[in-house]
């Protein structure tokens, strides 16, 4: 009777496909090409940061099947190494969710890696604060003026302004918000106001309301590069298809010669309190969408995939033990995923804390053994050449003790 419907599927006839896309996914990118010091070596790196809002269950995504306590804790939704919907074993301990065959393939091709038992410095369990910490790069909540990716961009030498792909999503993810100018895009197919009307309004705003002038001006930059016919949302789009669609558009933008090199996306809907599902079900559908999005980046970036890193992260994990409603409540450590041709993959990187009751954080969550900032730092350092010092001061303030993780790329 009370079926809990996935939030995207539940948006029925009264919700436009467009707002469904915007509600579930957003994409934004840096407005400039970085002039890399290492351009001489022929590398032209791409970086995509994917934020999963709602707290991804890391133990369901990359299951520690070899941990003797796992099956008991995750109970009815635990993955298993055999059977019809078996997890894809990454090594003799961790199994990847069966809804992610593309990531599994990338892993086997050594172009994807997992970091497990990872967490941001945030230790409480509010989504909104947790996302703020994850994206702002500060040690605690309440700092929402700029995000770490934006501050990393500020440290890069600025090249030409990107001229393509400027239609804008309603909200830029915090991780990319800040002083470094960004652009954004979302799939859209709507009749537009006449250019003359827009110019007159821009005139009025520039005289009376500079803030609205700035916003409208950015909004008016055309989305020509992104809106080929194949980019329009299709009927029957669900959450998973929306993820693919946004990724496809983003990849198309980023593959252009003058396209953005660094971008952020956010996907909603990972807050699986009830009926999370195991090998199939609600989380499986979302993971399938994420898997599809990664594949869209791979195919859409073409030659550029070779120099691409995608980092997938979430605000915190979920309880190790399923709750009373076959779901999981807010927890602590989880996984981060790395994919792309530049990743030194085929590895699960983890100082595994174990799932024995005494090893759980506060007796309930996977304990964090790796600081997520170390992962981000490692990527920013090795991929974009951001210095350790800038990372420790400007990008992730007061984080000197958290060292960049070495050897993620190559």
């Amino acid at each position: 009777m009370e079926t809990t419907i996935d939030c995207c599927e539940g948006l029925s006839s009264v919700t436009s496909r467009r707002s469904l896309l915007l509600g579930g996914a957003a994409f934004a990118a840096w407005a400039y090409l970085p002039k890399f010091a290492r351009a001489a070596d022929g590398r032209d790196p791409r970086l995509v940061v994917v934020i999963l809002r709602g707290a991804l269950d890391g133990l369901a995504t990359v299951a520690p099947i070899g941990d003797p306590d796992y099956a008991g804790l995750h109970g009815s939704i635990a993955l298993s190494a055999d059977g019809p919907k078996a997890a894809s074993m990454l090594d003799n301990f961790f199994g990847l969710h069966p809804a992610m065959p593309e990531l599994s393939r990338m892993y086997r091709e050594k172009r994807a890696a997992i970091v497990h038992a990872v967490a941001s410095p945030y230790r409480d369990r509010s989504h909104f604060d947790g996302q703020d910490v994850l994206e702002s790069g500060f040690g605690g909540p309440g700092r929402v003026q700029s995000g770490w990716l934006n501050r990393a961009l500020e440290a890069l030498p600025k090249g030409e302004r990107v001229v393509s792909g400027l239609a804008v999503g309603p909200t830029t993810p915090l991780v990319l918000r800040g002083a470094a100018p960004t652009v954004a895009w979302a799939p859209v197919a709507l009749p537009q106001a006449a250019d003359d009307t827009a110019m007159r309004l821009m005139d009025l705003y520039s005289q009376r309301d500079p803030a609205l002038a700035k916003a409208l001006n950015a909004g008016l930059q055309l989305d020509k590069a992104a809106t080929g016919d194949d980019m329009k949302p299709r009927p029957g789009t669900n959450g998973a298809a929306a993820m693919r669609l946004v990724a496809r558009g983003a990849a198309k933008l980023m593959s252009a010669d003058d396209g953005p090199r660094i971008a952020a996306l956010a996907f909603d809907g990972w807050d699986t309190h009830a009926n999370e599902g195991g090998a199939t079900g609600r989380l499986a559908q979302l993971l399938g969408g994420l898997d599809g999005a990664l594949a869209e980046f791979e195919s859409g970036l073409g030659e550029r995939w070779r120099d691409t890193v995608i980092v997938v992260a979430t605000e915190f994990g979920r309880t190790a033990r399923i709750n009373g409603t076959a779901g999981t409540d807010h927890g602590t450590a989880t996984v981060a995923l790395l994919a792309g041709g530049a990743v030194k993959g085929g590895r699960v990187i983890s100082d595994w804390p174990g799932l024995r009751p005494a090893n759980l954080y506060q007796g309930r969550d996977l304990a964090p053994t790796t600081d997520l900032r170390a992962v981000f730092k490692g990527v920013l350092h090795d991929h974009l050449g951001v210095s350790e010092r800038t990372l420790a001061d400007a990008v992730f303030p007061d984080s000197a003790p958290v060292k960049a993780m070495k050897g993620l790329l190559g």
Partner: protein
Amino acid sequence: MARDSQAALVALNRFGFGARGGAAGDFVNAASDPRGFVKAELGRPNGVPLEIPGLASTPALAKAVFQYQFEIQQAREAASKSTTGAATESPPQGAPDAKPTQRRNLSLSNIANDMSPKEPAMQQAQNNAAAPPVETMQPVAPKPPTQQPNIIQKTYRTEALARMQRAVMADCGFAERLVVFWSNHFCISASKGGLARMWAGSFEREAIRPHVLGRFADMLKAVEQHPAMLFFLDNQQSLGPDSRAGINRNRGLNENLAREILELHTLGVNGGYSQDDVTSLARIITGWTYAGRLGQLGTPGTFVFNANAHQPGAHRVMGKVYDQNGVAQGEAVLADIARHPSTAKFIATKFARHFVADDPPPALVARLADVFTNTDGDLKALSMALVDSEEAWKAPLTKIRSPYEFLMATGRLLGRIPEDPGRYLGGLNVLGQPLWSPAGPNGFPDSNAAWAAPEGMKLRLDISAQVASRLADNIDPRDLLELVAADAASPETRRTVERAETRQQALALLLMSPEFQRR
């Protein structure tokens, strides 16, 4: 008669839904007594409740939706039996909420169309000729047969229509703005599923409206015991691990509702609670559920306390031990946290942020928190204190209207009482504020960063242009500017409207002017 045009803008736009077109004289009335104009609605009996024919109670809606879902399930089971071995047959008809058989046409021209005075059928034909609706731009997909909207869609639209009609017709709209504020504070999301969509309107009518000018503690209790909230935050599934049902079914706690009560509804995220308090409260409110289709626990669709699901024993929340039995235990916690200082501060901040500024004056917040505390959460006193404050009238109009406020203000100015909610709902979807469907339990954002964003502004312009292209033929936008802002209109805006190439362009620019967008 004193006449304060700037204060009239504040009264109409900051506190209300904007001036109505026609002969209502809202601007003149607001200018002659701005505070009185805003407060008048709060003194009227029946100003806040929404009791009109055709709107049913939650249990009545429950009966209908349970029956509907039951029939669908039976049809599905019958179909799956009959189609075994006949795989080529077309899928069964009668789709559930999650798989709509009738897709609404959500093109912007139809939003404009809905505000049009002309015959709908005629307009529809014209629209289709002028601008193909979004649907037809898609790769060809088999059109589903035209079918009546199901009971869930029908109910949602009926409720939406009633709410929007009230907003468009109200004198000032302050009472409705308060309803929208509290409804968003205690939001559910219709996108959770059929029951939430079915109950979104009745939830607001039953749990929010009766208390908008009443006591916070009463609203809190009404909200947390409403079937829509219990469904939205999964509490009907939460079982005390040591309760009879928990032991029998080997299931247990779900912390979702308990956490959001503390984080979003009362104390706020820094309000001084811990994980233990969340878990404790989750235990205390096990058994808070609603009766289902079979009515084993009570009348279907009513709040019930299911003692079989309740975690027995005393529990500690925020340092206090609650040893009551049954539903009284949770009610005692709610009553205590409703008057906690953190709650007063959290509510006062959100309230001032909504009406005055993204960063509201600290003195105003402090005063509102004091009023909240000293009146034991009297929400009418809180509203009056806001209207009586100096800050609310002096602070510049820096906030931008939310999409809902923008569309309601447009409907008011153009004198279009909604008759079909579809196009307004479509507009809200396009602008990112689908009615009663925020993305998370924290509700829609309440900041310029969210609503004055680039894509949002561009879409507002597109919508304004579409509305204007349909409706500007028989109006003089210069007259409308008088109704919107009179001599509070800036010379630049006046000039922009006057110099526009066409009436259509002038109206679009007026709808986008700072005088119309800011509040």
